[in-house]
């Protein structure tokens, strides 16, 4: 009988000992760009455990942004949400409506933590802030930039070091860059802006450049039908129909990089997330520039933020805070930016020796940072999936010539008003 008691006692100790020593911190994260990034994340987690032996971090790769959101919300409905997740920055309102997350301000209470909350680029905070409180800490963030083929510029008699600074220049340069054969078939287009996948995102750049944001900061009103927004969509359409420097119809997001690399378009608008991939496979010298201006410059931010969930113990919240602080340290932000092409999320990351040297060797790495000054948060509202799709459909209907810009955007605005009325 005594051996049994001893065994039971031993078992009790074995079971309770690690539970007392460690907090388990599971977090979901999506990956939307190429490369062996799960290894990088796992490496960060192990490194964190070295200095925080009482916390065990379980990073779980959850697919793309949609998959990650579905997994996180399904886990929430099943009553066992992960304490921490990286999710799309624009999922904020959906998560708020599900009452799933809490503000970082509520956990970060010391003076040092409060200073940390202010250490990021303000441009990256707008998508994560609601009514003055921070819900999303920027992690993997991108923006749209213009890539240009210097060889094509030279061939067309343009200065290969001078990208277009405004819409007029872009149109004129693009028409010089568009190459047609004797029978009128195009062998190289002047510029391509992708219009599948994330048309609303690209359109936010046009609209912002024309002086307009597409939604308000409370996420309950859109601005789709403003005359300047209509004019922005008209310009996008005109690039194909009037100026004939871009293919008519929609331009595929997924194959655009290949078209640029094969020299079928001299300029493209694309995410900074493609920077490393273009750098690795371009056979010609290329440049990266800020998007051109109309009334002003402009480009939306995008990407994923850290969220902390409501159903968490104080210990988990504390561990989450420590871990996210660790993940956003300047050196780690610099390292993550070089591994991916994402922007480093705080100014002091760019003063680290590593990133300084990288930027000196490869200047395009800092274009996205310099563009922050003109950036606008990514389109996100309550009912965000539907409200966004209304705009996507209006853009595609216009680009394929089925509707006029004013008519398409007016219809989208009316429908968005109907959906958002109850949130005002």
């Amino acid at each position, binding site marked *: 009988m005594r051996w049994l008691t001893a065994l039971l006692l031993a078992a009790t100790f074995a079971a309770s000992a690690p539970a007392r020593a460690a907090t388990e911190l599971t977090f979901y994260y999506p990956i939307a760009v190429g490369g062996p990034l799960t290894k990088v994340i796992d490496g960060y987690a192990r490194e964190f455990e070295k200095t925080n032996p009482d916390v065990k971090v379980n990073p779980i790769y959850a697919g793309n942004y*949609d998959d990650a959101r*579905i997994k996180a*919300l399904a886990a929430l409905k099943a009553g066992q949400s992960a304490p921490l997740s990286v999710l799309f920055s624009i999922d904020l309102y*959906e998560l708020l*409506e*599900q*009452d*799933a997350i809490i503000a970082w301000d509520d956990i970060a209470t010391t003076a040092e933590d409060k200073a940390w909350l202010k250490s990021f680029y303000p441009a990256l905070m707008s998508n994560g802030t609601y009514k003055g409180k921070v819900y999303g800490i920027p992690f993997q963030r991108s923006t749209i930039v213009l890539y240009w083929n210097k060889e094509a510029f030279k061939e067309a008699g343009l200065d290969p070091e001078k990208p277009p600074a405004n819409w007029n220049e872009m149109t004129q340069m693009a028409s010089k860059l568009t190459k047609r054969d004797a*029978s*009128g*078939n*195009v*062998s190289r287009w002047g510029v391509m802006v992708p*219009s*599948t*996948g994330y048309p609303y995102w690209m359109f936010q750049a046009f609209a912002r450049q024309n002086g307009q944001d597409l939604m308000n900061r409370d996420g309950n009103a859109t601005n789709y039908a403003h005359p300047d927004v209509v004019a922005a969509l008209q310009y996008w359409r005109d690039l194909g129909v009037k100026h004939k420097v871009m*293919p*008519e*119809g*929609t*331009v*595929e997001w*997924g*194959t655009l990089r*290949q*078209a640029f690399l*094969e020299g*079928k378009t001299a300029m493209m608008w694309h995410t900074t997330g493609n920077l490393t991939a273009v750098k690795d496979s371009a056979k010609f010298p290329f440049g990266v520039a800020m998007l051109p201006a109309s009334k002003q410059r402009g480009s939306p931010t995008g990407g994923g933020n850290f969220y902390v969930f409501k159903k968490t113990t104080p210990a988990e919240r504390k561990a989450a805070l420590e871990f996210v602080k660790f993940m956003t340290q300047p050196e780690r932000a610099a390292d993550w930016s070089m591994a991916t092409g994402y922007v480093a999320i705080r100014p002091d990351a760019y003063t680290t020796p590593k990133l300084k040297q990288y930027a000196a060797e490869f200047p395009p790495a800092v274009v996205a940072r310099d563009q922050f000054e003109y950036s606008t948060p990514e389109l996100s509202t309550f*009912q965000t*999936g*539907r409200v966004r*799709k209304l705009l*996507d*459909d209006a853009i*595609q*209907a216009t*680009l*394929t010539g*089925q509707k006029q810009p004013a008519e398409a955007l007016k219809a989208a605005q009316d429908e968005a008003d109907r959906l958002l009325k109850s949130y005002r």
Partner: protein
Amino acid sequence: MRHVYGWLLLTPAAILLIAFTHYPAAATLLDSLFTTGTVVRPSRFVGLANYAALADDPIFWQVLRNNAWFALGTIPTAIAIALVMALWVNTRLPARALVRMAYFTPTILPMIAVANIWLFFYTPQIGLIDQFRAMFGAASHNWLGDPSTVLGATMVMVVWKEAGFFMIFYLAALQSLPPELEEAGRIEGASRWTFFWRVTFPLLMPTTLFVLVNATINSFKLVDHLFILTKGGPDNASSLLLYYIYQVAFSFFETSYAATLTSVLLALLATLALLQFALLEKRVHYR
């Protein structure tokens, strides 16, 4: 006692069917009568309001229309091509195994891989199709970016993918036909055409029914390619019913409306299956 024994034998299958087929279907039907609940606004009973909203939803009618064209475009073509291929590889050919395997290859590829390959076939200018057309001086065409060609483009890909699969069924059926029939036909002096229409094709009817039911279900079930090729665009021109259900459920999070759409899809498929069995059963010879 025999009853009990019989029910016991049925139980494992019945449990699986009820848990994973019948209960979800019934729950879906029930869900479609409620609003989508969030923590802030709990779900409440609304009767047929979701169905009224569905009747007013232009995108629903568009995806339904697209799906009808998709079915009409893919089912007969895939079946006809499958039959022709089966007849061809059932004859004495040099390297027959190789030809059969070549026809079957598209089937064993995952749809996502196929869609990624075809995405580059259809890419303007650099794609295979445009490069081929360029040899004859044709201008490049934006196959997936033009609402008038995008649905057709996805249909061609699906036929390519499906025909080889159906061919296998026809091939198996052809090989089970007794060779005496053909000898008898030859002695009677029947032309090959007559023999095919009067003997082979009627004897293949059970296979045709099977293939037809599968092709119909697939034309509503296969949407994987849309995730890669078009995301349903441009402006819903290539979207299909099931893809729209996915968008409503997981992008808009309107689970009740998604349940409503699913109920419609279920009713549609059930009706089609009943019709097929009722109408064609009479013309099918089972041995």
